[in-house]
């Protein structure tokens, strides 16, 4: 078995080096394919992380009129908490609201002075409602539209965040669509190139194949070197792709991180923590692609 394996590798290496430039072109195409798919997957990760981060920041702030009593607000909080869509409801009392306001405008003496002149706290209490999922917010908003709350609620804010999320979703969908098209084009090119390379290699080796069969080489011994050769392409392509991607990530990551400042997103860290999974997926993908393409060429052109 070991002898079989070593000789298969030897013949595969011979095939690789005899058509060296063809092998190089095949590897380049495979690198481009894996790279494009990785970039699409990477953009997906960035987009989904960004969406998740924005979603995490989404909440509905319900501003109550300053005249509304605390018991009425706590009653509304209780009713909101009993909704199955609601994750949490945070109560900010009138005093807390005033403290927060003062902190926010600590550098604006005019506002602070105006506040001093008012004898009573002009701010109402707020309930910050977080839903279990972003899709539940419209239902929570509907609940708050109840006429019973008309006299209590001064204002609600939600719409702005919704727009950001919709835009992100839309952008992510577009990136995904374009990415998939590019990847599919590269996959088709890669399949054709690998297929053609193996076909030419079979042609180059036709004399040797004929003699192999004549002297009693098993069918697998005749076929295996071509399959192994295509696996070389896959291995080399994945390694080259990783070697290109890592430094490129180092360049791109700070800018992406800056863009999403405040959101929990670190591309390099993500890549490092999922290195083996990414490597494994790329490797599996390249192997399947190579085996598939060379398999067709072998079945079609290598009659044993």
């Amino acid at each position, binding site marked *: 078995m070991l*002898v*079989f394996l070593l*000789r298969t590798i030897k013949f595969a290496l011979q095939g690789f080096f005899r058509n060296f430039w063809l092998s190089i072109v095949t590897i380049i195409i495979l690198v481009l394919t894996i790279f494009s798919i990785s970039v699409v997957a990477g953009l997906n990760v960035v987009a989904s992380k960004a969406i998740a981060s924005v979603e995490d920041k989404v909440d509905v702030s319900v501003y109550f009129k300053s005249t509304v009593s605390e018991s009425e607000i706590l009653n509304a909080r209780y009713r909101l908490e009993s909704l199955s869509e609601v994750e949490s409801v945070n109560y900010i009392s009138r005093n807390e609201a005033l403290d927060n306001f003062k902190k926010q405008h600590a550098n604006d003496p005019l506002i602070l002075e105006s506040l001093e002149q008012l004898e009573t706290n002009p701010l109402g209490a707020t309930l910050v409602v977080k839903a279990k999922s972003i899709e539940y917010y419209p239902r929570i908003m509907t609940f708050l539209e109840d006429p019973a709350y008309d006299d209590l609620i001064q204002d609600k804010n939600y719409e702005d965040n919704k727009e950001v999320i919709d835009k992100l979703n839309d952008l992510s969908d577009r990136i995904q669509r374009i990415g998939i098209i590019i990847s599919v084009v590269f996959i088709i090119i890669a399949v054709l190139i690998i297929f053609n390379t193996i076909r030419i290699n079979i042609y180059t080796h036709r*004399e*040797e194949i*004929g*003699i*192999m*069969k*004549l*002297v*009693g*080489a*098993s*069918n697998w*011994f*005749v076929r295996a070197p071509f399959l192994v050769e295509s696996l070389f392409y896959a291995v080399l392509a994945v390694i080259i792709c990783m070697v290109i991607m890592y430094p490129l990530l180092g360049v791109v990551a700070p800018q992406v991180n800056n863009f999403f400042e405040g959101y929990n997103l670190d591309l390099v860290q993500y890549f490092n923590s999922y290195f083996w999974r990414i490597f494994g997926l790329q490797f599996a993908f390249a192997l399947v692609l190579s085996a598939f393409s060379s398999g067709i060429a072998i079945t079609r052109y290598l009659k*044993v």
Partner: protein
Amino acid sequence: MITLKNVSKIYEPDTYALKNVSLHIEAGEFVSVVGQSGTGKTTLIRLIIAEERPTKGRVIIGDWDITNIKQREIPILRRQIGVVFQDFKLLPRKTIFENVAFGLEVAGVNLKRIQQVVPQVLKIVGLENKKDRFPKQLSGGEQQRAVIARALVHRPKILVADEPTGNLDSINTQEIINLLRKINEFGTTVVLVTHNREIVNSLRRRVITLDHGMIISDQSSGKYIL
């Protein structure tokens, strides 16, 4: 050793390469198969090495009916039958040693055994001093001897030679025939396909004559009769 029972081979649509051929070759025999071009000699060889399947009839090698041999069994058969062709079929980028070793390499034989067997067969064919040369550095006769050496590495029970002297001058031809005789003396069944009248007449062994795909003569100590 080799038995053909009522074998016909038809190439579509209606060309008979062999027509109802029956023959039996005993183990250790030296048989010449003669006939003009296109009489089915090469088809006969191709049936014996399972490169072709008969349209009708049965082909039996030893106790093995190879009429409907499975694809994966063909390599096992080929290791029992050495084959020599007119056009040598040596790999130009390999040395003579490597060419001969190739037969063992592809059969999965280990390196130690290869280094043991190859010099032995090179000695039998008289090429032990030219093992490091490339095919183009050898004469036609020497190249054919290298091919015979490659055919012998599996110690086959049968050696099939299809026009092995077709590209050789008379001196080299005689050398190859002497070599085939020597191999036959070791107990290997030899089937020689040839056009060469002189060889057949000088051998004084069994001669099977084919004409239009049929056996028209089978003499135990025959001559070239066409």
